[in-house]
């Protein structure tokens, strides 16, 4: 039979039509689409046995307890540790993606000198030369750590100065340090026993202090209750997150002057209605002046004064260092009292604030714990440690520091906490590049300095010898149960936290006789602005961008 061109065409058309009636083309189409959705270069999660380790968040001084899920040596998930007595399983939102930060595109991976790359050896030589030539200033953003001791010791040996960039919670306690002589770092807020909390703009429900501490208390004792056990009165110029959830929101004019004026007005109203002892300081500002400055009515201020003392103990919290607001606690007798400002330690030294004038320093060393936004005003040569490059003003030397959980670190008491705590965060993940902490850098320059690990050993011994407090692990152990410092330290290295006993501190001797003048208060609005790292986890940037839940954080890099 002769096959013609026409036969071929008919056969091809028939085959094509017939093929459509079979599942083959659809199966091929489906397979192609699945295959193209799963390209071999699409990233896949790390495989390996998963284990959960207890540790702490080291990204800011709030020291929240963490449960870190690990796979093949990498952190693959973060959750709050419910065994931590202060954070109680809660974290700030950013911490849930903190394990991604080590891979952030802006992660610093090499030493930089100006705009060019350099080496650790060159940085050491330059720093050694500068610190010999003239005064040295060392700035720490997370005081009280073992690493802080190294920084302080080095500064002292060089005849330099050790300064601290304190978080807002600590700055808000500075007035009490001036009036009582007790260092702010050894004071804390006894929130657990307060029945009324009056917040002058402090973001109590938005990351103030250890994020879980107040939010958990508020959820248990106030949320959704018409007459809550814990009355939260929020004084704010706008409906902040805390104001939106507070028992009462008091709206005042914008600006720190308004807060100080309201504090003075409240003090005047308390005196006028004989609600506080007559011998306590009286502000010179009249109620009418206060009302004019705050935009409130005189009667509203009087009513607020009655509310403040209606359910004691009452505790006033400023969002930054504001002496007029702090003086309200003196008036209310809340210093050294249960449910007020308490002292948790007697062994803390006062710090010199980093914001103080630096003067004629030759070199300034900035630890990675100092927020990137803090730039000292000086002509000195700046050696800045950082895990991420925040952009903007560049220091002379930019030195790559360990990232999230890449370094052994101890965790002293969080700012504003009412009991002493101590924990150790081991290096759970290996560093992905050649990094050094400021303490390691200084120890390599001066061999006589004790290493962080040695200081942690010695601190464990000190805490062990006190024989008081408890260790919070999967269960709570009394200190008496530990027979050796070694077993105690082992527990801490596994993520347990030691917490001291709440102190029954005597009432402070307070030197405040005259109502203080108002001071400027530059405040953090929430954890997002208090976030120490100059970058946010990419996931946070994405979610805020897509949800509109948070205002744009333009100064933060995505």
């Amino acid at each position, binding site marked *: 039979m002769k096959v013609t061109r026409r036969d071929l065409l008919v056969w091809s058309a028939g085959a094509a039509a017939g093929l459509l009636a079979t599942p083959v083309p659809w199966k091929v189409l489906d397979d192609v689409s699945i295959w193209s959705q799963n390209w071999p270069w699409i990233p*896949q999660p790390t495989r390996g046995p998963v284990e959960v380790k207890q540790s702490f968040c080291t990204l800011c001084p709030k020291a929240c307890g963490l449960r870190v899920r690990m796979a093949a040596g990498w952190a693959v*998930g973060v959750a*709050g540790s419910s065994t931590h007595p202060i954070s109680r399983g809660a974290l700030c*939102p950013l911490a849930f993606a903190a394990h991604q930060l080590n*891979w952030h595109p802006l992660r610093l991976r090499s030493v930089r000198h100006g705009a060019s790359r350099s080496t650790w050896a060159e940085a050491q030589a330059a720093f050694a030369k500068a610190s010999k030539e003239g005064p040295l200033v060392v700035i720490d953003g997370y005081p009280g750590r073992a690493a802080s001791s190294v920084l302080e010791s080095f500064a002292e040996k060089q005849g330099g100065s050790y300064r601290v960039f304190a978080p807002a919670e600590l700055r808000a306690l500075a007035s009490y340090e001036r009036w009582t002589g007790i260092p702010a770092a050894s004071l804390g807020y006894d929130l657990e026993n307060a029945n009324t909390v009056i917040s002058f703009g402090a973001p109590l429900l938005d990351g103030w202090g250890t994020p879980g501490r107040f939010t958990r208390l508020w959820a248990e004792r106030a949320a959704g209750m018409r007459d809550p056990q814990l009355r939260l009165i929020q004084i704010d110029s706008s409906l902040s997150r805390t104001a939106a959830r507070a028992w009462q929101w008091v709206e005042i004019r914008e600006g720190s002057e308004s807060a100080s004026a309201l504090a003075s007005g409240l003090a005047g109203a308390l005196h006028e209605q004989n609600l506080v002892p007559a011998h306590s300081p009286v502000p010179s500002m009249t109620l009418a002046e206060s009302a004019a400055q705050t935009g409130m009515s005189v009667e509203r201020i009087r009513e607020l004064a009655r509310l403040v003392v209606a359910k004691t103990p009452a505790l006033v919290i400023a969002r930054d260092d504001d002496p007029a607001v702090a003086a309200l606690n003196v008036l209310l007798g809340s210093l050294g009292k249960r449910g007020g400002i308490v002292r948790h330690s007697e062994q803390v030294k006062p710090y010199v604030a980093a914001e103080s004038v630096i003067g004629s320093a030759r070199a300034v060393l900035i630890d990675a714990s100092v927020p990137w936004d803090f730039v000292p005003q000086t002509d000195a040569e700046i050696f800045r440690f950082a895990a991420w490059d925040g952009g903007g003003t560049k220091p002379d030397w930019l030195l790559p520091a360990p990232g999230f959980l890449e370094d052994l670190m101890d965790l002293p008491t969080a700012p504003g906490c009412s009991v002493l705590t101590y924990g150790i965060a081991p290096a759970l993940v290996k560093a992905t590049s050649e990094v050094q902490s400021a303490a390691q850098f200084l120890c390599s320059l001066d061999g006589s300095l004790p290493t962080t690990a040695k200081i942690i050993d010695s601190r464990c011994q000190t805490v062990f010898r006190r024989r008081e407090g408890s260790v919070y692990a999967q269960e709570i152990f009394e200190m008496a149960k530990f027979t050796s410092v070694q077993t105690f330290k082992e527990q801490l290295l596994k993520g347990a936290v030691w917490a001291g006993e709440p102190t029954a501190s005597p009432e402070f001797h307070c030197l405040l006789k005259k109502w203080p003048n108002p001071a400027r208060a530059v405040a953090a609005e929430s954890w997002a602005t208090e976030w120490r790292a100059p970058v946010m986890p*990419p996931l946070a*940037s994405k*979610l805020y961008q897509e*949800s509109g839940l948070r205002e744009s954080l333009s100064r933060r890099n995505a």
Partner: protein
Amino acid sequence: MSARYGMVIDVDRCTGCGSCMMACAAENNVPALPQASARTGLTPLLVRKVSNGNVGETRREAFIPIMCMHCEHDTPCVKVCPQQAVEVDEATGIVMQMPQRCLGCRYCMTACPYHARYFNWWDPAWPPGMEKSLNPGVAVRMRGVVEKCNLCHARLHSAQEKAGAAGKREINPADYLPACAEACPTNAIHFGDLGNANDPVSKEAHSTQAFRLLARLGTEPKLYYKSNEAWVRALAEPDSPQASEVQRG
């Protein structure tokens, strides 16, 4: 024995911190793609702000986490899916999405009354090395399919594996908690078995303060909310006279 997993979200406790959103995205390996926008990004859990519409000191705001409501009856997404890529799991009550079957037609997105479904427009990508931080229990999401909350189904699998290894058929309820409920710093998200009358969450769902969004549609969502505030409860039915006075923030 079958369960009916669901949640009761206490709106009065929600401070709008966003921890639940972060934990959800991290748990489910949601990529942070710079090209994604509010319309095109994946947010299986989205916290929305609402207000009572007042001005001054009487203004109140609340935050409402929105996610798949896991509708029990006449589940809209199940009914419209031409691929049978969505189904209500009879054993758990979870509305399951099977990405391998999904052809990306997005009918389900249109049908969902809660706008709780998202289309995955792009291949997942992370900065170099960040894939090491992904959750190994959850596969990365493929392009071209619809995504939504599955009540952290991978965690249910882990709980079932653990129970199986111990020779048990039933999971320990403490072993299965979605990431959002675990992360909430105020314990506003309560997760449990709504089918078990003794479960505290089931009792809470029947309290007078509890409500469901768009309950009049009759889809019986398994996500309940509760609030002592009448203006918040009025949000449940946007066509109701009370809700007309309520403004979205």
